[in-house]
């Protein structure tokens, strides 16, 4: 195909003008991102689709924090041993286990688990490096993590920062699938770390049941992932989501309370998810099954 020189030149000039105009206007009035072309492109670049949902998965940090609030003792045998890292050779397994180790790092870090914390920092940094993420984000985060292993607040915050920058980099660079695997790995490990405690703690059992709300997001994420090495995991993951979705739940709207001074709104609606002992046992077993497939 031939492109007349004049048209091509006009295109370049027009495009440069569009860029110039949008940059200038950005300072006073945001405008002029090319709508049609950009809209299709951005959806494939991980930017939220218009009038559609973006996948939102609960942070493993929240689950770990609940364990602490409920005085659940640290159990070193729950985390995936860092020695397993060398088993993960393909991209999919590396990304899944990066998410999983991220949750383990939040777990060991929150409980000030000494040398283990350092080991999990190394595991997270190693897999992020293998996936080409580390060189593209702020490398100093890893040394900050290492120097803050005894300061759990800083550690948890830095860990979240590392995963936020990773997610942003992957989505900006057409690697949404890796970001999705990381999210799924983190979600499963957070569940795995809490299912045992849930047997004797109602608050944690409720949190497991509340994963019903996240199940549709996980299903949608999994649907988009077609790597052969994920096929078996996907099947069991969908089974887990189906079990969560079957749980009975209720919702009753209550008017929120606004506090203008503190810029806070108190969301007062009543909700519940019913989870029987049998359902908890079945879900726990299924979580372990999915997790075993990820870490094997």
């Amino acid at each position, binding site marked *: 195909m031939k492109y007349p020189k004049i048209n091509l030149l006009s295109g*370049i000039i027009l495009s440069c003008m569009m860029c110039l105009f949008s940059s200038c206007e950005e300072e006073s009035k945001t405008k002029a*991102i090319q709508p049609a072309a950009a809209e299709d492109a951005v959806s494939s670049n991980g*930017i939220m689709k218009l009038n*559609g949902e973006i996948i939102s998965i*609960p*942070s493993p940090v929240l689950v770990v924090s609940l364990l602490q609030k409920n005085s659940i003792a640290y159990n070193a045998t729950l985390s995936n041993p860092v020695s397993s890292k060398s088993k993960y050779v393909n991209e999919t397994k590396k990304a899944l286990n990066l998410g999983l180790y991220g949750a383990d790092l939040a777990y060991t870090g929150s409980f000030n688990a000494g040398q283990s914390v350092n080991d999990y920092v190394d595991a997270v940094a190693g897999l992020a490096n293998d996936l080409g993420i580390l060189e593209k984000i702020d490398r100093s985060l890893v040394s900050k993590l290492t120097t803050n292993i005894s300061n759990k*607040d800083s550690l948890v915050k830095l860990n*979240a920062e590392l995963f936020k920058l990773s997610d942003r980099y992957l989505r900006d660079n057409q690697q949404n699938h890796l970001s999705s695997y990381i999210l799924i790995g983190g979600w499963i490990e957070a569940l795995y770390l809490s299912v045992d405690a849930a047997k004797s703690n109602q608050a944690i059992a409720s949190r497991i049941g509340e994963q019903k*709300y996240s199940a549709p997001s996980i299903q949608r994420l999994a649907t988009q992932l077609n790597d052969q090495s994920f096929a078996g995991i996907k099947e069991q993951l969908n089974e887990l989501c189906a079990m969560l979705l079957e749980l009975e739940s209720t919702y009753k709207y209550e008017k929120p309370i606004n506090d203008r001074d503190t810029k806070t*709104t108190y969301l007062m609606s009543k909700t519940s998810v019913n989870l029987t002992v049998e359902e908890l046992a079945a879900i726990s077993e299924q979580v372990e099954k999915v997790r075993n497939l990820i870490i094997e």
Partner: protein
Amino acid sequence: MKTISTLLLLFVSLMPLTNAIAQCDTIVNLCEKHITDQYISDAQTYRALLNGDDVAEFTITLYSGNTYRMAACSGTSDSQLIFRIVDAEKNILYTNSDFGISPYWDFFVENTMQVTVEAMLDKNKSDSGCAVVLIGFKK
């Protein structure tokens, strides 16, 4: 010549996309100032390109006993993005348009619930641009 023309055309067609992503990145960086040290990021960035009356939305689970901070930004100054929180029955639980289009707000969650976050441009200030929503939870 054919190869050069094709490459130039590709370059031209990718420029708006590159520009859009760069614009979003700038806004994300500016918006992060609202997720202060007291908060831990949920490790995700919610972004959309909006035009006119476009509404971007996503659904999120808010867990009981936690305080979440949501920051909503567009453009290079605060208060250009309207956002609202809607429950599963479409009740509007909060909108920053009732509070001077505040660029951030905190939410204490009594019971775990699923909400939809909707974001739209303040048409008095801009008619298109990148919308960014960031979420953190209190340590």
